[in-house]
């Protein structure tokens, strides 16, 4: 899926990544536990989380995550948006819950981090 399609399917607000709307994503992972993402092969994935701390972006940065989706309509603080911009990581916020967000992306063909459907 292209980032632009993810924005559409999740009815998301795009905070960072206007210049990467054509970027393609194949896999996604969802967790409020940063350790889970750090322990998996999450590079180039979409990372869905309800946490909006700066550590969400640092976790994404060191793991090579391709885009971060904040679920449940949370708005990331300014410093988190700033860090995502510095790290060149697309950052979105969707009004949908974690469950529904994952379902919407899965329904469009996206796989889990290890490639399973």
């Amino acid at each position: 899926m292209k980032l632009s399609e993810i924005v559409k399917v999740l009815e998301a607000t795009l905070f960072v990544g206007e210049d990467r709307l054509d970027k393609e994503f194949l896999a996604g992972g969802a967790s409020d536990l940063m350790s889970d993402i750090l322990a998996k092969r999450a590079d180039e994935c979409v990372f869905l989380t309800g946490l909006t701390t700066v550590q969400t972006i640092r976790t994404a940065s060191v793991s090579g995550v391709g885009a971060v989706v904040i679920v449940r309509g949370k708005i990331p603080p300014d410093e988190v948006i700033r860090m995502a911009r510095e790290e060149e990581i697309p950052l979105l916020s969707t009004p949908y819950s974690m469950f529904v967000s994952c379902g919407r992306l899965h329904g469009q063909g996206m796989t889990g981090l290890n490639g399973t459907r």
Partner: protein
Amino acid sequence: MSAFRKTFQINKKDFIHAGEASVAVKNLLKSLHIDPKLIRRVAICGYEGEMNVVMHGGEGFLTFEIDSEKVVLNISDDGPGIADISLAMKKGYSTAADEYRQMGFGAGMGLPNMKENSDQFDIESEKGKGTRIRMVFLISKGG
């Protein structure tokens, strides 16, 4: 490549800045055109180590070294130390405070993840005497 070494300070309970050293190391390795998979392993190990110092340790340091064969991370702190290292190495074992768990850390995954992602992992700790971890990443091995 001639050897290069840089030390970063890690401050006790400084959750906001935790991870800055690892992101700096990641960007440095990127500028040296190191294999992205190796960079990812180094950055994850550094980051887990920094979070451990912030959550459990006292004041600490992360030292990064690179030469033509390897990247080495040394992470040390003067915190309370680990009473039982073999227990601390088990996935899921954690003594982290609730405040860190609420922020997505302290799930008992850090040390095992560091061991898995490094090519050589050594840990030394004693109750009351802090913790020292040395991790080696072989450039030839890449990801």
